[in-house]
């Protein structure tokens, strides 16, 4: 059983290496997309903070509670996208 597990682990790392290679083939676009990912996530948080500048709460949900929920969803989402996206 461990033999099989090690086999698939090795296969997984080979796939990850190929994926990073194919992403870095276009060098400038790789850096632009890295910056774009950060900008996209910042805009998500920024839109929440701008929304709560003009209204105090949404049905009793305050700004910090919604930030907690946003972060909690990212805890699930980002490991998935980091390790298993496009494989």
């Amino acid at each position, binding site marked *: 059983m461990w033999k099989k597990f090690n086999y698939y682990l090795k296969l997984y790392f080979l796939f990850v290496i190929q994926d990073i290679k194919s992403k870095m083939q276009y060098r400038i676009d790789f850096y*632009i997309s890295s910056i774009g990912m950060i900008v996209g996530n910042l805009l998500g948080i920024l839109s929440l903070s701008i929304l709560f500048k003009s209204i105090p709460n949404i049905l009793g949900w305050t700004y910090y509670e919604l930030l907690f929920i946003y972060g909690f969803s990212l805890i699930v989402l980002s490991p998935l996208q980091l390790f298993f996206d496009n494989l």
Partner: protein
Amino acid sequence: MPINKGINIFFFFISIVISYLIYFSIDFIVGVTAFYTESIWGLSMTKDAIILFLSGGVIPLPLFPENLRRVFEFLPFKTIYHMPIEILINKNLNIENIIYSLAVQIFWFLVIFSLSRFYYKHAETLIKMNGG
């Protein structure tokens, strides 16, 4: 004097056609950048996020703080989402406001379209082809 209901739907369709043309021109500028960088996956993703935010697609522009909104008045992005929706749902607009909005849209379309043509003319000089 506010205009009659139903007439604003007619202006809404004109406005949405122009806003699509503006969006296409910005898209075209990003697409032509592929002549320089060879891949535009990250750039087009970033452009989508920024346009959606600055044009009021995520949160409506009237909810933004006052000084930010004053900056957005001078940017072309509000002509994409904000202006057609404003024409459709704002009851206090009169015919002059709507004509003014359409004029602003046409102005920005002409500016961005001529920019995109100019950019394409420059990018055409370094075109590369593989295979074929």
